[in-house]
């Protein structure tokens, strides 16, 4: 071997040691460990320098060998003292003191040349040397110090419960084994010719530096085991590749020169393509066979990841996650806390292995919560309790953590926010959690966090949907969603009600069915809105309902690819508006006519009194009085109606003789009937006893019905009035042979101020309030009124009053009835 290449080994070692000395120096020398480490590095520097100089200055090899031996002598003591400090052994140490003494003696021997005999470096760079007389004693010193260092480190590994610290000891121990192995090579003549011991020392220095400067370390045993195991598939692939080349070259002898290279490249590509999946499989197999825990953990993560995405029930999700975790990592106790969205408190939602306990929760200002929110990473109990903030922990909170046996705190983070945490207790084996396991827990927590967030969002969406549905269903406006083809996609209950169809009947149907005119009309705003995709402000429209046309206020909003039609039924409002217009017209008319008369006669009396006879004056005054009465009646009727409708009318009951009451009404109407040539025929059941009812109302019923019958009868016609009892009802029937009422007017007859066009056209005067009054009076007695009419033949009004209400009662019963009515 070339001497140049061999000299590179100590040169590299020297560079490395110098670098480490500098780094250690910069790291600070206040700590005893650093001080002793730097002493060890210096001894190794001397060792390497001596070795390097032996190669570079072969003529003075014995002198450089002595220098090297100084380093060799100091090294075991420096290493021992470093291990001693590293382990923080008790201050007083007799071995160290004896070691210092022995080291001094061997240093003198090294300088005097008792440690190494003749030494020679050959042209090939091989070292030929003879051992000195002191070497056997030095061997004892060397072996004892390094052996004792080994013992200290092994004890450290066994005693410490801390995973990281154990790893650090392992690194140092591994380095020590490397040194011993390197040193042993010197005992074998041919191996001693190579600087293998220096190579070993270099490797050890690197390991030690890594141990000291890096705090978190990989599990070295895992690295070594895994490294060795993974070599197997790699070797298999490599061997396969070489074999293939060998066969190819030998089978096809013609392949020579650059063709060999070409074939090799091609084969390499083929091997890579074929063997890569095979290698991956082999590595998986190795994981399963030799790294069972990690393999299982990976499988568990995959399982959780797969399942979590499909579970939207929080309870099931958290339970599944904890069970998987506990069974895979063999955790004795673990608890999962999730943040309550409203209070911010972290409540325990799932646990495994906990003894009986009270409800557990973590306040938002819990020191652990605050710390995790800040660091956002897995924390050990030590990490957390070292923070000053941890001092604010309450005794109860401390007990809770003790109950769980908290060892690790794993945050559940979603978008950087702490949505929960996993408090992990000890493993069943009592062994501490490795870095890999912490990483796995962190991964699991993150997966869970996402799944939990999904479940939360799902829950939230569900609730929001329910709320929206309630709002839609309870709205009194109709809402219809149609697609781009104007087919109904969905609609609310109110829409169905307004349209008059069942919802199922309309789904999938074209909107044209409802808004045919609007959709078809060229100038329709709705049509333009559909075409332009722009919103349509609410405006009056007409829809085709099952029961006919309905007036609606219709608006439209485009929603993505759909249109949302929103309409309110304003049929009644429009009807009311119309009625209001009628009211004004009728009341004005009803009041203006007598008012005009009054005004006219009053003017006559004022301005032409001297020209009028007494009789004429009297007539004027009579008319004024009569017209004033007419106005009063109109106003009273309005007030009565208003009272009845507002429920303010006092229903004073009294005994009424219906025969007498009818006679009174007929007498009042007689003149009017006589003028119109109408005959009134009355029939009252003679066996009918007096009834208990409100006199004014009964009077109003008879008067209005009879008055209408007379008004709408043709000249010479007849009007029948019949009062009798039928079963448990009192019937009042009023029939005429008049004009009759058109069918379309019948539903509106009892509406205030409603007057049929036919009546209007016939010039029959009226306020449109009479029948409304009848209806209210009848209903006040819990009765009903109905009408039957035929155009040109006449009309019959039938009032049905429950006999139970009208039967003579005690005062108590009357009061009770009055009370129930009010209620």
């Amino acid at each position, binding site marked *: 071997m070339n001497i140049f290449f061999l000299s590179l080994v100590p040169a590299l070692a020297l560079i490395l040691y110098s670098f480490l000395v500098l780094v250690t120096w910069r790291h600070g020398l*206040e*700590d005893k*460990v650093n001080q002793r480490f730097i002493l060890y590095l210096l001894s190794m520097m001397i060792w390497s320098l001596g070795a390097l100089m032996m190669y570079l200055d072969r003529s003075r090899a014995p002198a450089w060998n002595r220098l090297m031996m100084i380093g060799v002598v100091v090294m075991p003591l420096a290493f021992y003292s470093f291990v001693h400090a*590293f*382990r*923080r052994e*008790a*201050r007083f140490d007799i071995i160290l003191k004896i070691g210092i003494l022995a080291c001094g003696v061997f240093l003198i021997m090294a300088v005097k040349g008792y440690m190494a005999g003749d030494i020679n470096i050959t042209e090939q760079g091989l070292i030929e040397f003879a051992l000195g007389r002191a070497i056997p004693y030095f061997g004892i010193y060397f072996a004892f110090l390094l052996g004792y260092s080994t013992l200290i480190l092994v004890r450290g590994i066994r005693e*410490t419960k*801390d995973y*990281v*610290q154990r790893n*650090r000891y392992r690194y140092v121990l591994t380095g020590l084994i490397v040194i011993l192995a390197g040193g042993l090579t010197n005992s074998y003549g041919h191996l001693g010719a190579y600087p293998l011991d220096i190579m070993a020392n270099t490797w050890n220095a690197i390991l030690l530096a890594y141990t000291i400067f890096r705090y978190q370390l990989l599990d070295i045993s895992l690295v070594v085991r895994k490294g060795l195991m993974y070599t197997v598939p790699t070797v298999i692939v490599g061997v396969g590749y070489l074999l293939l080349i060998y066969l190819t070259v030998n089978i096809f002898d013609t392949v020579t020169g650059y063709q060999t290279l070409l074939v090799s490249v091609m084969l390499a590509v083929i091997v890579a393509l074929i063997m890569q999946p095979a290698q991956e499989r082999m590595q998986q197999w190795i994981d399963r066979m030799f790294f069972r825990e990690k393999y299982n953990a990976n499988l568990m993560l995959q399982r959780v990841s797969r399942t979590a995405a499909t579970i939207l029930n929080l309870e099931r999700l958290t339970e599944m996650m904890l069970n998987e975790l506990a069974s895979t990592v063999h955790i004795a106790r673990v608890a999962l806390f999730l943040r309550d969205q409203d209070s911010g408190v972290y409540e325990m939602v799932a646990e495994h292995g906990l003894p009986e306990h009270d409800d557990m929760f973590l306040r938002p*200002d819990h020191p652990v919560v605050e710390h995790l929110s800040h660091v956002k990473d897995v924390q050990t*109990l*030590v990490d957390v*309790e*070292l*923070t*000053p*903030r941890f*001092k*604010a922990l*309450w*005794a*109860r909170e*401390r007990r809770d*953590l*003790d109950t769980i046996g908290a060892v690790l705190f794993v945050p559940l983070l979603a978008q950087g926010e702490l949505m929960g945490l996993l408090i992990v207790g000890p493993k069943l084996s009592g062994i501490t959690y490795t870095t890999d396991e912490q990483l796995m827990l962190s991964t699991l927590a993150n997966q869970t966090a996402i799944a939990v967030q999904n479940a939360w969002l799902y829950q939230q969406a569900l609730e929001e949907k329910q709320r929206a549905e309630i709002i839609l269903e309870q709205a009194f406006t109709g809402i219809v969603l149609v697609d781009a083809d104007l087919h109904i996609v969905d609609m609310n209950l109110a829409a169905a009600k307004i349209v008059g169809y069942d919802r199922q009947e309309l789904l999938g149907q074209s909107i044209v069915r409802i808004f045919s005119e609007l959709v078809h009309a060229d100038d329709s705003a709705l049509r333009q809105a559909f075409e332009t995709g722009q919103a349509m402000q609410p405006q009056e429209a007409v829809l085709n309902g099952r029961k006919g046309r309905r007036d609606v206020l219709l608006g439209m909003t485009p929603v993505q690819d759909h249109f949302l039609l929103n309409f309110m039924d304003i049929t009644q409002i429009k009807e009311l508006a119309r009625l209001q217009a009628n009211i004004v017209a009728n009341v004005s008319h009803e009041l203006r006519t007598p008012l005009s008369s009054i005004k006219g006669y009053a003017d006559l009396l004022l301005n032409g009194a001297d020209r009028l006879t007494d009789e004429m004056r009297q007539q004027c005054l009579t008319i004024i009085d009569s017209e004033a009465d007419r106005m009063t009646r109109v106003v009273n009727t309005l007030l009565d109606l208003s009272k009845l409708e507002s429920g303010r009318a006092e229903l004073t009951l009294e005994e009424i003789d219906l025969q007498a009451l009818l006679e009174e009404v007929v007498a009042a109407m007689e003149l009017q009937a006589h003028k119109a040539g109408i005959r009134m025929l009355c029939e009252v059941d003679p066996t009918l006893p007096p009834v208990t009812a409100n006199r004014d109302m009964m009077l109003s019923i008879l008067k209005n019905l009879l008055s209408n019958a007379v008004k709408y009868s043709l000249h010479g016609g007849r009007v029948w009035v019949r009062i009798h009892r039928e079963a448990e009802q009192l019937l009042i029937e009023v029939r005429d042979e008049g004009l009759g009422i058109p069918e379309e007017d019948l539903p509106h007859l009892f509406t205030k101020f409603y007057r049929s066009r036919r009546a209007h056209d016939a010039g029959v005067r009226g306020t449109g309030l009479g029948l409304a009054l009848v209806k209210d009076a009848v209903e006040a007695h819990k009765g009903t009124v109905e009408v039957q009419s035929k155009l040109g033949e006449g009309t019959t009004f039938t009032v049905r009053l429950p006999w139970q209400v009208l039967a003579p009662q005690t005062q108590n019963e009357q009061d009770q009835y009055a009370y129930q009515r009010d209620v």
Partner: protein
Amino acid sequence: MNTEIIQLLKQGRKQDIWKQYCGFLDLTLSEFMSIQERLLLEQLNEVGASELGKKLMNGKTPATLDEFRNSVPLTEYMDYEPFMRDGQEHTLPRKPYIWAHTSGRSGGYKMVPYSREVYDKAGERIMSAFILSMARHRGEVRLEESDVLLYNVPAAPYASGVALLSVAQRFPFHFVPSLGETENLSFQERLELSFQKAMVTGIDVLGSITSVLVKIGERFAQGAGGAKMSRYVVHPKAMVRLSRAYVRSRLAGRGMLPKDIWNVKGITCGGTDTSIYKEKIAEYWGVTPLELYASTETGVVAAVQAWDRVGMYFFPDVVFIEFIPEKDWVKNRQDPSYQPRTVLLDEVEPGQRYELVITSLHGGPFLRYRMRDLIRFVDLKNDELGVQMPSMVCAGRSDGLIDLAGFTGLIDESMIWRAIHDTGINYEEWTARKEMTSEGATLHVYLEPREPLKLDEVRTKIHENLKRDNPFYSDLETMLGIDPLRLTFLHRGTFAAFYLERQAAGADLAHLKPPHMNPSDQIVSDLKRISKSLS
């Protein structure tokens, strides 16, 4: 649940040790206040359920800090006395783990129950003080396993002794003397024994009464020597130690000092005199002492200096702290029915004196308890150190003040001590009080010098120093032309004789020496009598 310090030390995790024990110095003021408030809320719930709490809070447990400050009255020991007896443990918030009692310096003995948590905290905080006493800069932990801890503070059941028991459970110090070994020895005997043993063991950490260290240092400086001859002194290690000390002192060209014998890493001291003697202690012992504020009621150490050895910083988790501003305690002094208002740590002002009010945490018994200790805030934060909390110094006792005239301001112990110390005279001891003479109110200082001095000269110097430190005192002369200071020299050995006389009469440790402030007529009369007899 606390991580064991010894484990951290063995793992070389000194930064973590610093974080755990001294990390409170990294807190911001708001973090400090939030820890205080959180622990107070826990305490209120616990106290509110106890018989003691119901009585003190009238059966109404405050739910917030403001409610607490507005509704709970300030208390004194007499409010607790009926509950601090055997058989009354069930009335307390938490079952006592151990009872501690006070020195009786401020009157009678006070029994104080320590819950397990308070006991643990006591040890933890002493450890913080030890670590800080050894630190020369932020983050430096010089603690080593089996460090020798020499202590000369009263043993259990005094609070200091109780705290040391807690420390022993926390860290394997080599206690010198070992705990329990000296229970039957007098203070003097224990002192001698501990330093004799230290000749063999060495001293790493020293927990001491300030005056003891000063006295020992002075004895060395005066060439009176260290320990008496004993089996410890002839021990080879002691001889090596003495030889080395001899060489060191020769090389330095002076007499042997304690620092030549022992390589002390840290000293902790408590009391008003610590700041006055810190240079002297540093000169004699080679280390500037770390001052701490401790009392039995606070669960021993409540505040401690940082590595700069200037102001003290409160621990956030020992007791809940409030402060009565000077204006309020003066008003309360004149009208005891006046309820003084309090301020919190984030409301204090630098340069102002306050009386300390504490509320126990971790199940302790005290609620808004007036400590009667005066403190003065030095600064609201220290940017140089990177500490964001107010620092303070002790100013004496609120019942140990001298009020010369209405507008002179109250003269506290530290003012007089500083004034005497800064004269540079060599003196043994002093005591001072207000005396009424035909000329009006005077401040009478009784001083025992160690060497012949001119009375007028010393009086003038003290007067000038008082004027320097107390502008109100200065105003007395400038505005009214009054010089109120009277000085009486006591004969050499007066205080020592007084001490022996008291010891012979069976007085306890706290009452052996005359108080510095406001000694009774009897004490002054005794001192004068002894001085006269010695002359």
